[in-house]
Protein backbone atom coordinates (compact mmCIF):
# COMPACT_ATOMS: atom_id res chain seq x y z
CA UNK A 1 0.00 0.00 0.00
CA UNK A 2 1.52 3.27 -1.00
CA UNK A 3 0.80 6.73 -2.20
CA UNK A 4 -1.61 9.55 -1.67
CA UNK A 5 -3.80 9.47 -4.73
CA UNK A 6 -5.48 12.58 -6.08
CA UNK A 7 -8.49 12.07 -8.32
CA UNK A 8 -7.57 14.86 -10.74
CA UNK A 9 -10.59 16.18 -12.58
CA UNK A 10 -10.28 17.78 -15.96
CA UNK A 11 -11.52 21.31 -16.51
CA UNK A 12 -11.62 23.63 -19.46
CA UNK A 13 -8.29 23.65 -21.26
CA UNK A 14 -6.39 21.69 -18.60
CA UNK A 15 -6.68 20.27 -15.14
CA UNK A 16 -9.59 21.62 -13.11
CA UNK A 17 -8.55 24.11 -10.40
CA UNK A 18 -9.67 21.62 -7.75
CA UNK A 19 -7.11 19.08 -9.03
CA UNK A 20 -4.29 21.52 -8.30
CA UNK A 21 -5.76 22.31 -4.89
CA UNK A 22 -5.93 18.59 -4.09
CA UNK A 23 -2.28 18.14 -5.02
CA UNK A 24 -1.45 20.92 -2.56
CA UNK A 25 -3.62 19.27 0.09
CA UNK A 26 -2.08 15.87 -0.56
CA UNK A 27 1.58 16.82 -0.46
CA UNK A 28 1.97 17.13 3.33
CA UNK A 29 0.03 13.89 3.77
CA UNK A 30 2.35 12.09 1.38
CA UNK A 31 5.34 13.52 3.22
CA UNK A 32 3.97 12.46 6.60
CA UNK A 33 3.33 8.95 5.32
CA UNK A 34 6.67 8.83 3.50
CA UNK A 35 4.87 7.90 0.31
CA UNK A 36 4.60 9.45 -3.15
CA UNK A 37 1.97 11.96 -4.20
CA UNK A 38 0.13 10.36 -7.07
CA UNK A 39 -2.40 11.80 -9.52
CA UNK A 40 -5.02 9.74 -11.30
CA UNK A 41 -6.45 11.23 -14.48
CA UNK A 42 -9.48 9.69 -16.12
CA UNK A 43 -10.22 11.25 -19.49
CA UNK A 44 -10.90 10.49 -23.10
CA UNK A 45 -7.40 11.72 -23.95
CA UNK A 46 -5.05 12.86 -21.23
CA UNK A 47 -2.47 14.49 -23.51
CA UNK A 48 -0.53 17.19 -21.63
CA UNK A 49 -2.63 16.80 -18.46
CA UNK A 50 -0.16 14.37 -16.90
CA UNK A 51 2.69 16.86 -17.22
CA UNK A 52 0.46 19.55 -15.77
CA UNK A 53 -0.26 17.34 -12.76
CA UNK A 54 3.50 16.90 -12.42
CA UNK A 55 4.04 20.63 -12.54
CA UNK A 56 1.59 21.07 -9.67
CA UNK A 57 3.25 18.49 -7.46
CA UNK A 58 2.37 14.95 -8.55
CA UNK A 59 5.39 12.64 -8.45
CA UNK A 60 3.68 9.87 -10.32
CA UNK A 61 0.71 10.11 -12.67
CA UNK A 62 -1.61 7.29 -13.66
CA UNK A 63 -3.72 7.85 -16.71
CA UNK A 64 -6.86 6.00 -17.73
CA UNK A 65 -8.04 6.87 -21.22
CA UNK A 66 -11.41 5.79 -22.49
CA UNK A 67 -14.12 7.30 -24.69
CA UNK A 68 -16.64 6.87 -21.86
CA UNK A 69 -14.54 9.12 -19.62
CA UNK A 70 -15.03 12.14 -21.85
CA UNK A 71 -17.82 13.60 -19.74
CA UNK A 72 -18.13 13.71 -15.98
CA UNK A 73 -20.44 10.68 -15.79
CA UNK A 74 -20.12 9.56 -12.15
CA UNK A 75 -20.69 5.86 -12.84
CA UNK A 76 -17.92 5.52 -15.43
CA UNK A 77 -15.53 7.58 -13.35
CA UNK A 78 -16.35 5.49 -10.29
CA UNK A 79 -15.62 2.30 -12.21
CA UNK A 80 -12.35 3.71 -13.52
CA UNK A 81 -11.23 4.98 -10.13
CA UNK A 82 -12.22 1.75 -8.41
CA UNK A 83 -10.10 -0.26 -10.83
CA UNK A 84 -7.19 2.16 -10.47
CA UNK A 85 -7.34 2.09 -6.68
CA UNK A 86 -7.34 -1.70 -6.65
CA UNK A 87 -4.14 -1.70 -8.74
CA UNK A 88 -2.34 1.20 -7.10
CA UNK A 89 -3.52 0.40 -3.54
CA UNK A 90 -2.96 3.93 -2.24
CA UNK A 91 -3.07 4.83 1.45
CA UNK A 92 -5.34 7.77 0.79
CA UNK A 93 -7.65 8.96 -1.98
CA UNK A 94 -8.53 12.65 -2.25
CA UNK A 95 -11.34 13.99 -4.38
CA UNK A 96 -12.93 17.41 -4.79
CA UNK A 97 -16.29 18.44 -3.42
CA UNK A 98 -17.56 18.72 -6.97
CA UNK A 99 -20.62 17.14 -8.61
CA UNK A 100 -18.35 14.28 -9.68
CA UNK A 101 -16.31 14.01 -6.48
CA UNK A 102 -19.21 13.98 -4.03
CA UNK A 103 -20.79 11.09 -5.89
CA UNK A 104 -17.70 9.07 -6.69
CA UNK A 105 -15.83 9.54 -3.37
CA UNK A 106 -18.41 8.14 -0.96
CA UNK A 107 -19.41 5.33 -3.30
CA UNK A 108 -15.79 4.29 -3.73
CA UNK A 109 -15.30 4.30 0.04
CA UNK A 110 -18.42 2.23 0.69
CA UNK A 111 -17.40 -0.29 -1.94
CA UNK A 112 -14.04 -0.62 -0.24
CA UNK A 113 -15.76 -0.87 3.15
CA UNK A 114 -14.09 2.24 4.57
CA UNK A 115 -15.37 5.59 5.77
CA UNK A 116 -15.13 8.91 3.99
CA UNK A 117 -14.63 12.43 5.31
CA UNK A 118 -16.75 14.69 3.15
CA UNK A 119 -16.26 18.40 2.43
CA UNK A 120 -13.08 18.78 4.48
CA UNK A 121 -11.12 22.00 4.85
CA UNK A 122 -8.06 20.67 6.65
CA UNK A 123 -6.24 17.36 6.68
CA UNK A 124 -3.34 15.75 8.48
CA UNK A 125 -1.90 12.35 9.18
CA UNK A 126 -1.37 11.64 12.85
CA UNK A 127 -0.76 8.39 14.66
CA UNK A 128 -1.58 6.33 11.62
CA UNK A 129 -4.96 8.02 11.13
CA UNK A 130 -6.22 10.69 8.81
CA UNK A 131 -7.53 13.60 10.85
CA UNK A 132 -9.83 15.94 8.97
CA UNK A 133 -11.80 19.02 9.86
CA UNK A 134 -15.13 19.73 8.25
CA UNK A 135 -17.72 22.44 8.73
CA UNK A 136 -21.02 21.04 10.02
CA UNK A 137 -24.43 22.43 10.99
CA UNK A 138 -24.34 24.68 7.96
CA UNK A 139 -20.95 26.06 8.97
CA UNK A 140 -21.97 26.95 12.51
CA UNK A 141 -19.55 24.41 13.92
CA UNK A 142 -16.47 22.44 12.98
CA UNK A 143 -16.09 18.71 13.42
CA UNK A 144 -12.74 16.99 13.74
CA UNK A 145 -12.97 13.42 12.54
CA UNK A 146 -10.59 10.50 12.26
CA UNK A 147 -10.39 7.80 9.63
CA UNK A 148 -8.35 4.85 10.78
CA UNK A 149 -8.84 2.32 8.05
CA UNK A 150 -6.91 2.59 4.79
CA UNK A 151 -7.39 3.80 2.21
CA UNK A 152 -8.46 7.06 3.79
CA UNK A 153 -11.01 8.69 1.50
CA UNK A 154 -11.81 12.39 1.68
CA UNK A 155 -13.51 14.98 -0.49
CA UNK A 156 -12.05 18.44 -0.15
CA UNK A 157 -13.93 21.74 -0.31
CA UNK A 158 -12.93 23.89 -3.31
CA UNK A 159 -10.64 26.83 -2.51
CA UNK A 160 -9.73 25.41 0.89
CA UNK A 161 -6.18 24.84 -0.32
CA UNK A 162 -3.94 27.08 -2.39
CA UNK A 163 -2.30 25.30 -5.37
CA UNK A 164 1.48 24.98 -5.24
CA UNK A 165 3.51 27.20 -7.54
CA UNK A 166 3.92 25.24 -10.78
CA UNK A 167 7.34 23.80 -11.54
CA UNK A 168 8.75 24.50 -15.00
CA UNK A 169 10.18 21.09 -15.89
CA UNK A 170 8.65 18.53 -13.61
CA UNK A 171 10.16 15.07 -13.56
CA UNK A 172 7.10 12.94 -13.40
CA UNK A 173 6.60 9.28 -14.16
CA UNK A 174 3.51 8.72 -16.27
CA UNK A 175 1.91 5.32 -16.47
CA UNK A 176 -1.21 4.33 -18.28
CA UNK A 177 -3.76 2.15 -16.53
CA UNK A 178 -6.09 -0.01 -18.56
CA UNK A 179 -9.69 0.22 -17.41
CA UNK A 180 -12.54 -1.87 -18.65
CA UNK A 181 -15.78 0.04 -18.85
CA UNK A 182 -18.89 -1.77 -19.92
CA UNK A 183 -21.83 0.34 -21.06
CA UNK A 184 -24.30 -2.43 -20.22
CA UNK A 185 -23.30 -2.35 -16.55
CA UNK A 186 -24.02 1.37 -16.26
CA UNK A 187 -27.72 1.95 -15.89
CA UNK A 188 -27.74 5.74 -15.72
CA UNK A 189 -28.12 7.04 -19.28
CA UNK A 190 -27.66 10.70 -20.08
CA UNK A 191 -30.40 11.90 -22.44
CA UNK A 192 -29.61 15.57 -22.63
CA UNK A 193 -27.36 18.30 -21.24
CA UNK A 194 -28.84 21.73 -20.77
CA UNK A 195 -26.05 24.20 -20.32
CA UNK A 196 -26.86 27.67 -19.07
CA UNK A 197 -24.69 29.97 -21.14
CA UNK A 198 -22.73 32.12 -18.75
CA UNK A 199 -22.37 35.73 -19.74
CA UNK A 200 -19.45 37.76 -18.48
CA UNK A 201 -17.05 36.71 -15.75
CA UNK A 202 -17.61 33.38 -14.03
CA UNK A 203 -18.77 33.80 -10.45
CA UNK A 204 -16.16 31.33 -9.17
CA UNK A 205 -13.32 33.23 -10.85
CA UNK A 206 -14.44 36.83 -10.33
CA UNK A 207 -12.18 39.10 -8.26
CA UNK A 208 -15.20 41.17 -7.26
CA UNK A 209 -18.64 39.74 -6.49
CA UNK A 210 -21.74 41.81 -5.83
CA UNK A 211 -24.46 39.69 -4.26
CA UNK A 212 -28.04 40.34 -3.31
CA UNK A 213 -30.39 38.76 -0.80
CA UNK A 214 -34.04 38.43 0.06
CA UNK A 215 -34.06 41.98 1.41
CA UNK A 216 -33.96 43.27 -2.17
CA UNK A 217 -37.61 42.28 -2.39
CA UNK A 218 -37.70 41.11 -6.00
CA UNK A 219 -35.73 40.56 -9.19
CA UNK A 220 -35.67 44.19 -10.42
CA UNK A 221 -33.05 45.57 -7.99
CA UNK A 222 -30.55 43.10 -9.41
CA UNK A 223 -30.19 45.48 -12.36
CA UNK A 224 -28.46 47.87 -9.98
CA UNK A 225 -26.23 45.05 -8.78
CA UNK A 226 -25.42 44.19 -12.41
CA UNK A 227 -24.44 47.77 -13.03
CA UNK A 228 -22.19 47.86 -9.98
CA UNK A 229 -20.59 44.58 -10.97
CA UNK A 230 -19.95 45.96 -14.45
CA UNK A 231 -18.30 49.07 -13.02
CA UNK A 232 -16.05 46.97 -10.81
CA UNK A 233 -15.33 44.29 -13.40
CA UNK A 234 -17.05 41.66 -11.27
CA UNK A 235 -19.90 39.19 -11.26
CA UNK A 236 -23.31 39.04 -9.61
CA UNK A 237 -24.27 36.40 -7.06
CA UNK A 238 -27.19 35.72 -4.75
CA UNK A 239 -28.33 34.00 -1.60
CA UNK A 240 -30.39 30.85 -1.76
CA UNK A 241 -33.50 32.77 -0.69
CA UNK A 242 -33.23 34.75 -3.94
CA UNK A 243 -32.94 31.62 -6.08
CA UNK A 244 -35.69 29.79 -4.16
CA UNK A 245 -37.95 32.78 -4.87
CA UNK A 246 -37.16 32.44 -8.56
CA UNK A 247 -35.67 35.93 -8.86
CA UNK A 248 -32.46 34.49 -10.32
CA UNK A 249 -31.53 31.01 -11.56
CA UNK A 250 -29.69 28.68 -9.17
CA UNK A 251 -26.42 29.20 -11.02
CA UNK A 252 -26.15 32.45 -9.07
CA UNK A 253 -26.40 30.84 -5.65
CA UNK A 254 -23.40 31.22 -3.37
CA UNK A 255 -22.96 29.03 -0.30
CA UNK A 256 -22.84 25.57 1.14
CA UNK A 257 -25.06 24.11 -1.55
CA UNK A 258 -24.22 26.74 -4.15
CA UNK A 259 -20.94 28.10 -5.46
CA UNK A 260 -17.74 28.67 -3.54
CA UNK A 261 -16.10 31.91 -4.55
CA UNK A 262 -12.66 33.40 -3.94
CA UNK A 263 -13.19 37.05 -4.69
CA UNK A 264 -10.93 39.72 -3.16
CA UNK A 265 -13.99 41.87 -2.59
CA UNK A 266 -17.51 40.69 -1.78
CA UNK A 267 -20.32 43.20 -1.53
CA UNK A 268 -23.42 41.72 0.13
CA UNK A 269 -26.59 43.74 -0.26
CA UNK A 270 -29.55 42.82 1.95
CA UNK A 271 -28.12 39.40 2.81
CA UNK A 272 -28.41 38.35 6.46
CA UNK A 273 -25.28 36.20 6.46
CA UNK A 274 -26.63 32.78 7.46
CA UNK A 275 -23.81 30.31 8.06
CA UNK A 276 -24.84 28.30 5.00
CA UNK A 277 -24.37 31.38 2.87
CA UNK A 278 -21.06 32.32 4.48
CA UNK A 279 -19.77 28.82 3.70
CA UNK A 280 -19.40 29.92 0.08
CA UNK A 281 -17.29 32.98 0.88
CA UNK A 282 -15.11 31.70 3.70
CA UNK A 283 -11.86 32.62 1.94
CA UNK A 284 -12.95 36.13 0.97
CA UNK A 285 -10.90 38.66 2.96
CA UNK A 286 -12.87 41.79 2.21
CA UNK A 287 -16.56 41.43 2.88
CA UNK A 288 -18.66 44.56 2.62
CA UNK A 289 -22.22 44.41 3.93
CA UNK A 290 -25.14 46.74 3.36
CA UNK A 291 -28.03 45.78 5.65
CA UNK A 292 -30.66 47.72 7.53
CA UNK A 293 -30.34 45.44 10.55
CA UNK A 294 -27.22 46.31 12.56
CA UNK A 295 -27.43 42.94 14.32
CA UNK A 296 -27.41 40.92 11.09
CA UNK A 297 -24.81 38.11 11.39
CA UNK A 298 -23.11 39.26 8.18
CA UNK A 299 -21.57 42.15 10.12
CA UNK A 300 -19.69 39.69 12.30
CA UNK A 301 -17.63 38.71 9.30
CA UNK A 302 -17.63 41.91 7.32
CA UNK A 303 -14.65 44.23 7.13
CA UNK A 304 -16.78 47.22 6.17
CA UNK A 305 -20.45 47.67 6.95
CA UNK A 306 -23.22 50.11 6.28
CA UNK A 307 -26.33 49.92 8.43
CA UNK A 308 -28.99 51.39 6.21
CA UNK A 309 -31.67 50.89 3.61
CA UNK A 310 -30.17 49.59 0.38
CA UNK A 311 -32.71 51.61 -1.60
CA UNK A 312 -30.90 54.75 -0.47
CA UNK A 313 -27.39 53.45 0.18
CA UNK A 314 -26.87 51.57 -3.05
CA UNK A 315 -27.65 54.23 -5.70
CA UNK A 316 -25.48 56.77 -3.88
CA UNK A 317 -22.71 54.19 -3.53
CA UNK A 318 -22.86 53.30 -7.23
CA UNK A 319 -22.80 56.98 -8.26
CA UNK A 320 -19.77 57.63 -6.12
CA UNK A 321 -17.98 54.54 -7.42
CA UNK A 322 -18.64 55.75 -10.96
CA UNK A 323 -17.17 59.16 -10.11
CA UNK A 324 -14.13 57.74 -8.39
CA UNK A 325 -13.40 55.39 -11.24
CA UNK A 326 -14.29 58.04 -13.83
CA UNK A 327 -16.48 55.68 -15.78
Amino acid sequence: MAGVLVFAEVGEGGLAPIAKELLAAGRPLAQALGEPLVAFIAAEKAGPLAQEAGAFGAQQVYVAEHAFLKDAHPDYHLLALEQAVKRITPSAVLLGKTPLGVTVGPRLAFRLGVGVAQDVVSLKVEGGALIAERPVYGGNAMARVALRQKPFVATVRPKAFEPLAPQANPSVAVQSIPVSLDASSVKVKVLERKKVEATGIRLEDARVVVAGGRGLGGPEPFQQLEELARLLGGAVGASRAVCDAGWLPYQYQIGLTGKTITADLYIAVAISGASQHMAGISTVKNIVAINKDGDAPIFQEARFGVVGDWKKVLPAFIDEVRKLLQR
Partner: protein
Amino acid sequence: MPLTIVVTAKQVLDPETPASALQIDTARKRMVAPPNVPPVVNGFDENAVEAALRIKDALGAPNVKITVLSVGKSFALDVIKKPLSMGADDLVLVQDDGCDGLDAFQTARVLAAAIKQMGPVDLVLCGRQASDWDQAQVPLALAEFLGLPCVHITKKVEVKDKTVVVERVLPDGTEVVQVPLPALITVSNELGQPRYPTLRGIMASTRKQPIIRKLSDLGLNPADLKPKVELLDLYIPVRQKKCEFISGDNDEEKGRNLARRLREAKLI
Protein backbone atom coordinates in the same frame (compact mmCIF):
# COMPACT_ATOMS: atom_id res chain seq x y z
CA MET B 1 -49.06 -3.73 -8.06
CA PRO B 2 -48.69 -0.09 -7.18
CA LEU B 3 -45.38 1.67 -7.55
CA THR B 4 -43.73 1.57 -4.13
CA ILE B 5 -41.65 4.54 -3.11
CA VAL B 6 -39.59 4.84 0.05
CA VAL B 7 -38.56 8.31 1.16
CA THR B 8 -35.90 8.57 3.85
CA ALA B 9 -36.30 11.42 6.31
CA LYS B 10 -34.35 12.69 9.27
CA GLN B 11 -35.38 14.78 12.22
CA VAL B 12 -32.86 17.59 12.62
CA LEU B 13 -32.19 20.68 14.64
CA ASP B 14 -33.96 23.60 12.95
CA PRO B 15 -31.31 25.17 10.70
CA GLU B 16 -33.04 28.53 11.05
CA THR B 17 -32.06 28.61 14.73
CA PRO B 18 -29.91 31.70 15.15
CA ALA B 19 -26.25 30.77 15.54
CA SER B 20 -26.07 32.72 18.79
CA ALA B 21 -28.67 30.39 20.34
CA LEU B 22 -26.78 27.20 19.51
CA GLN B 23 -24.65 25.38 22.03
CA ILE B 24 -22.45 22.34 21.92
CA ASP B 25 -22.97 19.43 24.24
CA THR B 26 -19.29 18.54 24.43
CA ALA B 27 -19.84 15.21 26.13
CA ARG B 28 -22.19 13.95 23.44
CA LYS B 29 -20.43 15.94 20.69
CA ARG B 30 -23.71 17.27 19.48
CA MET B 31 -25.18 20.67 18.75
CA VAL B 32 -28.17 21.52 20.91
CA ALA B 33 -30.87 24.07 20.30
CA PRO B 34 -32.61 25.94 23.10
CA PRO B 35 -35.53 23.93 24.55
CA ASN B 36 -38.15 26.20 22.97
CA VAL B 37 -36.91 25.51 19.43
CA PRO B 38 -38.48 22.27 18.16
CA PRO B 39 -36.69 20.07 15.64
CA VAL B 40 -37.82 19.91 12.02
CA VAL B 41 -37.82 17.39 9.21
CA ASN B 42 -34.63 17.95 7.23
CA GLY B 43 -35.54 20.39 4.43
CA PHE B 44 -34.09 18.32 1.59
CA ASP B 45 -36.04 15.30 2.86
CA GLU B 46 -39.22 17.37 2.56
CA ASN B 47 -38.17 18.06 -1.01
CA ALA B 48 -37.87 14.29 -1.50
CA VAL B 49 -41.36 13.79 -0.03
CA GLU B 50 -42.63 16.44 -2.44
CA ALA B 51 -40.96 14.64 -5.36
CA ALA B 52 -42.73 11.43 -4.32
CA LEU B 53 -46.08 13.21 -4.02
CA ARG B 54 -45.68 14.71 -7.49
CA ILE B 55 -45.18 11.21 -8.86
CA LYS B 56 -48.30 10.16 -7.01
CA ASP B 57 -50.21 13.11 -8.47
CA ALA B 58 -49.02 12.21 -11.96
CA LEU B 59 -49.75 8.49 -11.80
CA GLY B 60 -52.89 8.65 -9.69
CA ALA B 61 -53.10 7.99 -5.97
CA PRO B 62 -54.11 4.30 -6.09
CA ASN B 63 -51.08 3.51 -8.24
CA VAL B 64 -48.43 4.79 -5.87
CA LYS B 65 -47.60 3.96 -2.27
CA ILE B 66 -45.24 6.23 -0.37
CA THR B 67 -43.55 4.99 2.79
CA VAL B 68 -41.43 7.38 4.81
CA LEU B 69 -38.57 5.81 6.73
CA SER B 70 -36.51 7.30 9.53
CA VAL B 71 -33.79 6.04 11.87
CA GLY B 72 -33.10 7.51 15.27
CA LYS B 73 -33.00 7.10 18.99
CA SER B 74 -36.11 9.16 19.70
CA PHE B 75 -38.54 11.22 17.69
CA ALA B 76 -40.80 14.20 18.16
CA LEU B 77 -43.85 12.45 16.73
CA ASP B 78 -45.65 15.62 15.64
CA VAL B 79 -42.53 16.61 13.70
CA ILE B 80 -41.64 13.33 12.03
CA LYS B 81 -45.29 12.77 11.09
CA LYS B 82 -45.26 15.84 8.84
CA PRO B 83 -44.68 13.81 5.64
CA LEU B 84 -47.86 11.87 6.48
CA SER B 85 -49.80 15.09 6.73
CA MET B 86 -48.34 16.13 3.37
CA GLY B 87 -49.79 12.99 1.82
CA ALA B 88 -47.41 10.06 2.38
CA ASP B 89 -49.10 6.73 3.17
CA ASP B 90 -46.97 5.14 5.88
CA LEU B 91 -44.28 6.02 8.36
CA VAL B 92 -41.72 3.48 9.52
CA LEU B 93 -39.46 4.45 12.40
CA VAL B 94 -36.43 2.43 13.33
CA GLN B 95 -36.32 3.63 16.90
CA ASP B 96 -33.63 2.19 19.09
CA ASP B 97 -31.06 3.39 21.62
CA GLY B 98 -28.50 1.76 19.36
CA CYS B 99 -29.38 4.28 16.65
CA ASP B 100 -27.94 7.20 18.62
CA GLY B 101 -24.99 8.84 16.92
CA LEU B 102 -24.62 6.38 14.06
CA ASP B 103 -22.29 7.52 11.30
CA ALA B 104 -23.44 7.69 7.68
CA PHE B 105 -22.21 4.22 6.77
CA GLN B 106 -24.05 2.54 9.65
CA THR B 107 -27.19 4.66 9.25
CA ALA B 108 -27.34 3.48 5.66
CA ARG B 109 -26.93 -0.10 6.82
CA VAL B 110 -29.93 0.25 9.10
CA LEU B 111 -32.00 1.93 6.38
CA ALA B 112 -31.03 -0.79 3.91
CA ALA B 113 -32.08 -3.52 6.33
CA ALA B 114 -35.42 -1.79 6.94
CA ILE B 115 -36.05 -1.37 3.21
CA LYS B 116 -35.16 -4.98 2.44
CA GLN B 117 -37.70 -6.05 5.03
CA MET B 118 -40.43 -4.11 3.24
CA GLY B 119 -40.23 -6.31 0.18
CA PRO B 120 -39.64 -5.06 -3.37
CA VAL B 121 -39.29 -1.29 -3.62
CA ASP B 122 -39.30 0.54 -6.95
CA LEU B 123 -37.88 3.88 -6.03
CA VAL B 124 -35.95 5.26 -3.07
CA LEU B 125 -35.92 9.04 -2.71
CA CYS B 126 -33.61 10.81 -0.27
CA GLY B 127 -32.78 14.42 0.50
CA ARG B 128 -29.38 15.34 -0.93
CA GLN B 129 -27.93 15.86 2.56
CA ALA B 130 -29.01 16.46 6.14
CA SER B 131 -28.69 20.00 7.37
CA ASP B 132 -27.08 18.97 10.66
CA TRP B 133 -23.97 17.02 9.66
CA ASP B 134 -24.07 18.08 5.97
CA GLN B 135 -22.39 14.84 4.98
CA ALA B 136 -24.34 13.86 1.86
CA GLN B 137 -23.26 10.26 2.36
CA VAL B 138 -26.20 8.21 3.60
CA PRO B 139 -28.05 8.03 0.25
CA LEU B 140 -24.92 7.01 -1.62
CA ALA B 141 -24.10 4.35 0.93
CA LEU B 142 -27.70 3.18 0.84
CA ALA B 143 -27.54 2.82 -2.94
CA GLU B 144 -24.41 0.69 -2.53
CA PHE B 145 -25.99 -1.49 0.17
CA LEU B 146 -29.15 -2.00 -1.91
CA GLY B 147 -27.19 -2.40 -5.14
CA LEU B 148 -29.25 0.32 -6.81
CA PRO B 149 -28.20 2.72 -9.54
CA CYS B 150 -28.24 6.22 -8.16
CA VAL B 151 -28.45 9.80 -9.34
CA HIS B 152 -27.34 12.46 -6.88
CA ILE B 153 -28.70 16.01 -6.47
CA THR B 154 -31.69 16.34 -8.74
CA LYS B 155 -34.51 18.84 -9.28
CA LYS B 156 -37.10 16.85 -11.20
CA VAL B 157 -38.15 13.21 -10.87
CA GLU B 158 -40.65 11.57 -13.21
CA VAL B 159 -41.58 7.91 -13.49
CA LYS B 160 -42.07 6.77 -17.08
CA ASP B 161 -42.87 3.13 -17.84
CA LYS B 162 -40.38 1.14 -15.83
CA THR B 163 -37.84 3.95 -15.63
CA VAL B 164 -37.27 7.18 -13.79
CA VAL B 165 -36.31 10.31 -15.73
CA VAL B 166 -34.57 12.90 -13.60
CA GLU B 167 -32.93 16.25 -14.00
CA ARG B 168 -29.57 16.55 -12.27
CA VAL B 169 -28.45 19.92 -10.93
CA LEU B 170 -25.00 20.96 -12.14
CA PRO B 171 -23.10 24.21 -11.54
CA ASP B 172 -23.55 25.28 -15.15
CA GLY B 173 -26.95 23.84 -15.99
CA THR B 174 -28.77 20.56 -15.76
CA GLU B 175 -28.53 17.07 -17.18
CA VAL B 176 -31.51 14.87 -18.00
CA VAL B 177 -30.83 11.21 -17.23
CA GLN B 178 -32.87 8.05 -17.38
CA VAL B 179 -32.51 5.07 -15.07
CA PRO B 180 -34.42 1.79 -15.04
CA LEU B 181 -36.31 1.04 -11.81
CA PRO B 182 -35.50 0.18 -9.10
CA ALA B 183 -33.27 3.18 -8.44
CA LEU B 184 -32.26 5.67 -5.77
CA ILE B 185 -32.46 9.40 -6.42
CA THR B 186 -31.41 12.27 -4.15
CA VAL B 187 -33.45 15.44 -4.30
CA SER B 188 -32.36 19.05 -3.82
CA ASN B 189 -34.27 22.23 -3.02
CA GLU B 190 -34.20 23.26 -6.69
CA LEU B 191 -37.19 20.91 -7.05
CA GLY B 192 -39.31 23.67 -5.52
CA GLN B 193 -41.23 24.29 -2.32
CA PRO B 194 -42.63 21.24 -0.57
CA ARG B 195 -46.40 21.47 -0.27
CA TYR B 196 -48.03 22.51 2.98
CA PRO B 197 -50.00 19.88 4.85
CA THR B 198 -53.72 20.21 4.22
CA LEU B 199 -56.22 20.13 7.07
CA ARG B 200 -57.40 16.77 5.78
CA GLY B 201 -53.84 15.53 5.67
CA ILE B 202 -53.25 16.64 9.23
CA MET B 203 -56.43 14.91 10.39
CA ALA B 204 -55.47 11.72 8.60
CA SER B 205 -51.95 11.77 9.99
CA THR B 206 -53.10 12.15 13.58
CA ARG B 207 -55.01 8.89 13.19
CA LYS B 208 -52.08 7.06 11.63
CA GLN B 209 -49.57 5.45 13.93
CA PRO B 210 -45.99 4.94 12.84
CA ILE B 211 -44.75 1.40 12.43
CA ILE B 212 -41.94 1.01 14.96
CA ARG B 213 -39.00 -1.30 14.39
CA LYS B 214 -36.11 -2.16 16.70
CA LEU B 215 -32.64 -2.97 15.45
CA SER B 216 -33.19 -6.56 16.54
CA ASP B 217 -36.32 -6.73 14.33
CA LEU B 218 -33.99 -6.01 11.43
CA GLY B 219 -31.47 -8.63 12.47
CA LEU B 220 -28.97 -5.96 13.49
CA ASN B 221 -26.88 -5.79 16.61
CA PRO B 222 -25.85 -2.37 17.95
CA ALA B 223 -22.38 -3.73 18.70
CA ASP B 224 -21.85 -4.23 14.95
CA LEU B 225 -22.65 -0.61 14.14
CA LYS B 226 -19.28 0.92 15.01
CA PRO B 227 -18.61 4.14 13.10
CA LYS B 228 -16.22 4.16 10.15
CA VAL B 229 -15.71 7.87 10.71
CA GLU B 230 -14.83 8.66 14.29
CA LEU B 231 -15.98 12.03 15.60
CA LEU B 232 -13.15 13.38 17.76
CA ASP B 233 -14.36 16.83 18.54
CA LEU B 234 -17.05 19.38 17.74
CA TYR B 235 -16.47 23.08 18.31
CA ILE B 236 -17.73 26.51 17.37
CA PRO B 237 -14.97 28.37 15.56
CA VAL B 238 -14.05 31.76 16.96
CA ARG B 239 -14.53 34.65 14.59
CA GLN B 240 -12.50 37.72 15.35
CA LYS B 241 -13.33 40.02 12.47
CA LYS B 242 -14.08 43.55 13.49
CA CYS B 243 -16.42 45.41 11.26
CA GLU B 244 -15.69 49.02 10.48
CA PHE B 245 -19.09 50.68 10.28
CA ILE B 246 -19.30 53.54 7.81
CA SER B 247 -20.92 56.62 9.22
CA GLY B 248 -22.84 59.43 7.56
CA ASP B 249 -25.71 61.80 8.26
CA ASN B 250 -28.07 59.77 6.14
CA ASP B 251 -28.10 56.56 4.13
CA GLU B 252 -27.04 58.29 0.88
CA GLU B 253 -24.02 59.80 2.55
CA LYS B 254 -23.10 56.45 4.07
CA GLY B 255 -23.23 55.00 0.56
CA ARG B 256 -20.90 57.68 -0.80
CA ASN B 257 -18.57 57.33 2.18
CA LEU B 258 -18.42 53.58 1.65
CA ALA B 259 -17.21 54.11 -1.93
CA ARG B 260 -14.54 56.55 -0.73
CA ARG B 261 -13.41 54.22 2.04
CA LEU B 262 -13.12 51.26 -0.37
CA ARG B 263 -11.10 53.45 -2.72
CA GLU B 264 -8.83 54.49 0.14
CA ALA B 265 -8.32 50.85 1.07
CA LYS B 266 -7.47 50.20 -2.61
CA LEU B 267 -10.27 47.67 -2.89
CA ILE B 268 -11.84 49.38 -5.89
